[in-house]
């Protein structure tokens, strides 16, 4: 027994430092929250969390430079695939934390009234535990860790959505989220059980090899069954059609910073799961007749169908929304569709294409939700009309929102355009013209609802003599950073693309690592 214990400690646990820092910060925040007197301001806890995120980001960056490594036979694996996703999660969580500070600050939506949040310590540290789950998920190359990480993220999100206990839409949203999320977890787990049953291993690399054997030895049908269950489970997680029904209610009911967290971190985690699980497990499968990989020739058609359905449903139903957060929910469903396009067309560029769009999506979505949060609390309404005359009241805010919306719509000179352009090229490159056409057409449709907001801001006049919207420094930081990144990635995408192509070595993901 002594020998085994020593073996556990012999692994390079330093590689896990980013997660340990986040775990430490979350634990410290929990304890401090207990010790602080009841009436005390909880916002300093958020700064502690933010400090933890910054340290963790630095440690992740150090891991990017280092050689890939693993702990306990791929239970935890540090490769550049994981590192890239972790950086996205950390940035998203940091922004959400900044927005949350303003949310409970003086004059914030959650500071009083029916939308009040009383458990403010929890508000902050549940964001960190959610982040921890997402980071573990990105680093896991084992079905069990993958699933537990997913559940840590999911459970934290359920509670975050339900924090505004007196607000009826929040309760409704949280309930729908728990039920749908539970079903999605069950379906994912059922799919994973097929993988384990066919291969006898939970290690993803071993599963990949085992599936190849299972496929040629007559169990091809069950391989397909596993694939479909996993795709359905993940589609729930990333809110892709036709498994998107929970998203609008949840996005509307959740506090805006949490909505932003769900739209960015939770969705990105879903894509990390999709890529890690499906690529490592299914990439080795080949058609016995002509030797073409199944993921390229057969399975990708189904992913393409999900992508097309998400783009069409998300963008058309968004047209009818009058609540901005619901509209953004459908917009995020559509974006899940766009993001699935490179997975359906599957070239060697899939990682950099998806990652670039995820980063662009991170900034434009965070920025847009930051503005929505300010306007909603200023007007006391999340209706589209709350934006009327924003340009007169707060010209800078209106300009920033316009930038984010144009980027979400994918107009040139913004990060969204470059990202979408690469996704489009990948579809055209594989001669998937239908998918490319759907992408362009639905993008055009999306102009209508994004421009509806812009029209409200510029062409409608609000009430005369309204004071400008007050911008707390934390939200101002989020908006400024997001706007700067959206413009920079739009005008000068080359440094970022270089970084993705050269610094991040995504093929490390498939590399068997020596002990």
């Amino acid at each position, binding site marked *: 027994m002594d020998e085994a214990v020593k073996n556990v400690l012999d692994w390079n646990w330093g590689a896990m430092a980013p997660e340990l820092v986040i775990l430490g910060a979350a634990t410290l925040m929990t304890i401090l929250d207990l010790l602080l007197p009841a009436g005390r301001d909880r916002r300093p806890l958020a700064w502690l969390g933010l400090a933890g995120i910054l340290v963790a980001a630095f440690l992740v960056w150090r891991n990017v430079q280092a050689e890939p490594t693993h702990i*306990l036979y791929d*239970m935890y694996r540090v490769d550049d695939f994981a590192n890239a996703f972790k950086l996205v999660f950390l940035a998203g969580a940091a922004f959400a934390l900044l927005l949350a500070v303003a949310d409970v600050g003086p004059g914030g939506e959650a500071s009083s009234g029916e939308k009040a949040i009383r458990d403010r310590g929890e508000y902050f540290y549940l964001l960190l535990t959610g982040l921890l789950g997402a980071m573990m998920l990105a680093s896991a190359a084992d079905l069990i860790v993958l699933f537990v990480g997913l559940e840590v993220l999911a*459970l*934290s999100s359920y*509670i975050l959505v339900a924090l505004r206990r007196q607000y009826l839409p929040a309760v409704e949203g949280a309930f729908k989220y728990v039920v749908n999320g539970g079903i999605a977890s069950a379906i994912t787990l059922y799919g994973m059980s097929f993988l384990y049953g066919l291969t006898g291993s939970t290690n993803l690399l071993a599963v990949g090899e085992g599936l190849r054997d299972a496929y040629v*030895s*007559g*169990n091809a*049908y069950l391989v397909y069954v596993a694939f479909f269950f996993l795709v359905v489970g993940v589609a729930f997680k990333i809110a892709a059609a036709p498994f998107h029904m929970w998203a609008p209610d949840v996005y509307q009911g959740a506090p805006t910073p949490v909505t932003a967290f769900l739209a960015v971190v939770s969705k990105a985690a879903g894509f990390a799961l999709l890529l890690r699980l499906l690529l490592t497990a299914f990439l080795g499968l080949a058609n016995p007749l002509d030797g073409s990989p199944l993921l390229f020739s057969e399975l990708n058609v189904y992913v393409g169908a999900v992508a097309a359905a998400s783009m069409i449903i998300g963008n058309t139903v968004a047209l009818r929304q009058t609540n901005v957060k619901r509209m953004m929910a459908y917009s995020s469903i559509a974006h899940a569709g766009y993001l699935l396009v490179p997975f359906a067309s599957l070239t060697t560029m899939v990682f950099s294409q998806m990652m670039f769009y995820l980063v662009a999506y991170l900034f434009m979505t965070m920025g847009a939700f930051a503005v929505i949060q300010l306007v909603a609390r200023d007007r006391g309404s999340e209706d589209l009309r709350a934006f009327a005359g924003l340009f007169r009241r707060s010209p800078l805010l209106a300009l920033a929102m316009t930038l984010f919306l144009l980027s979400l719509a994918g107009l040139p000179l913004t990060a969204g355009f470059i990202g979408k352009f690469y996704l489009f090229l990948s579809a055209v490159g594989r001669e998937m013209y239908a998918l490319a056409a759907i992408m362009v057409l639905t993008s055009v449709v999306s102009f209508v609802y994004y421009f509806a907001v812009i029209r409200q801001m510029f062409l409608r006049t609000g009430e005369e003599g309204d004071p400008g919207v007050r911008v707390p420094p934390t939200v101002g930081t989020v908006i400024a950073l997001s706007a700067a990144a959206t413009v920079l990635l739009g005008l000068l995408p080359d440094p970022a693309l270089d970084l993705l192509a050269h610094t991040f070595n995504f093929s490390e993901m498939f590399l068997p690592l020596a002990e």
Partner: protein
Amino acid sequence: MTAGISGEFVAFFLLSLITLGGAVFMLSFTRVVHMVVALAFSFLGLAGLYVMLEAEFVAFSQVLIYAGAVSILMLFGIMLTRHDVDEEEQDRRRRHRTFAFVAVLALFVALFKGIVALVPAGEGKLAEANTLEIGKALFTKYVIPFELVSVLLLVALVGAIVLARKEGHDA
């Protein structure tokens, strides 16, 4: 399945019947208390199936946690909350049910086709002393997910308190 009627087969048949019957009754009952009792039968049947598969540890956890703790917890939940049976919306429910039945039937056919056609990869070796083996694996190779589960439980605990606590007077 060409074997004659052995004791093992009879036991398997009975346990499956209890498991499936419990699940079906759980869905068709309309009163929550009946549902929980039906569910407890289903849990116990599963525990029996685990014993037949020589997974004693899982079987006992199943009895302790599901048949014991979860069922009791549900009964407490029922006692402490209001639970009026909603008899309305029968018509809508019927159409809904037909649709759900067709969908589930399709799924069953699809899965059954796969399970019948399964080409087994040879008999696996069932671990002996599997409680000991599970303990060893849990604290060596699987220590990361094990620790992560403790975070999961912490989150669940915090969440339960946040959601269930009575509103204070500090508003």
